[in-house]
């Protein structure tokens, strides 16, 4: 029993701590319309953790994906998905829509 507590206590603490600060994080928005990201280039500060809200205005599902950023999340039609990112090093990070990679392309510019 003590073993269980030993392993779960730090996890629970970390969980509590991480959800506590989540509300104060800066937010950035991306909109998907006609399978195109708007804006296609999004500027965010380096070294800061932030929330990215991806809103899909299309009638079809999309998957927000970035192999550079190691993120993948389904965004259902006419709804939003939330992805936590960072803190990131300065640089350019590509993202795309996995279901429409021909048109849904964009870059995160971290500076």
């Amino acid at each position, binding site marked *: 029993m003590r073993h269980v507590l030993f392993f779960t206590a730090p996890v629970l603490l970390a969980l509590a701590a991480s959800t506590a600060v989540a509300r104060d994080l800066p937010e950035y928005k991306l909109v998907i319309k006609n399978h195109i990201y708007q804006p296609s280039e999004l500027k965010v500060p380096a070294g800061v953790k932030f929330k990215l809200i991806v809103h899909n205005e299309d009638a*079809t599902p999309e998957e927000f994906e970035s192999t550079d950023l*190691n993120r993948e999340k389904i965004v259902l039609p006419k709804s939003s*998905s*939330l992805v936590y990112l960072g803190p990131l*090093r300065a640089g350019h990070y590509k993202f795309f829509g996995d279901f429409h990679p021909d048109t849904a392309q964009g870059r995160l510019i971290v500076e």
Partner: protein
Amino acid sequence: MLGVALLVFREVMEAALIVSIVCAATRGVARRGWFVTAGIGLGVAGALLVAMGADLIARFASGSGQEIFNACVLLFAVVMIGWHVVWMSKHGRESAQHMDAIGSAVRVGSSSLTLLLAVVAIAVLREGSEVVLFIYGMAIGGIGAAGLTGGIALGVGSGALLGFALYFGLLRIPMKHFFKVTNWMLVLLASGLASTAARFLVQGNLLPSWGSQVWDTSWLLSNGSLAGQTLGILIGYDASPTGLQFVFYATTLLLLVVGMQRVGRASPSPASRMRSQPPDPTTESLR
């Protein structure tokens, strides 16, 4: 049609590689084919359910439902693989004096069949639910039935072909080393899946990242490349992992290696087991 084929191929490839490793690792087990088929069937049914319930999952846990679901499913697969690998090391050695490696594999039938069913179902479910949502979108988007079915057939066919290639490639490994190799592949596969679970937990802000970009080897091999993606599935390669991913990977690897050795050593033969003193509680709890 090619766009459809490409996406379906990438998803099917992920599932196919996992399925072929598990199939190779359970070589010689009786009724194996039935369990693989059942696992694929369950996975497809599960994928349809998950796709239909995507809205529900998305809204769960203030928007982090997808991440929780993925992490849970992945960690369940890790436990299943871990159980099999540790169990296998015990019974593989126990019977090594009397039987060849295939014979010992037959004896571990129960653990192997559960592993097969669960891991195959999970792999198909995870990738399949994405394919279902994608196809649904394509169908709404007005792609013709011919283009859609053609693309799906091409994608599934080529993905499955890759899986078969890996499977038959593995079968060429000499029998003496065969299960050693497949067991190690399972260990690395499980470690990689644990790391992916950690990635989802960080993405959903459910656990701290412990360093969001610990290192960056994308100049050498990026996650997006075919080789990077393949290695990502097989051994958990990640060009710029978070600290937490590294911790999950290393912990799984360590636990399985130690588990394999301890359990393997703990039961050399029935005779010496009777003579030996009572085992200490820590090794006992491992069983």
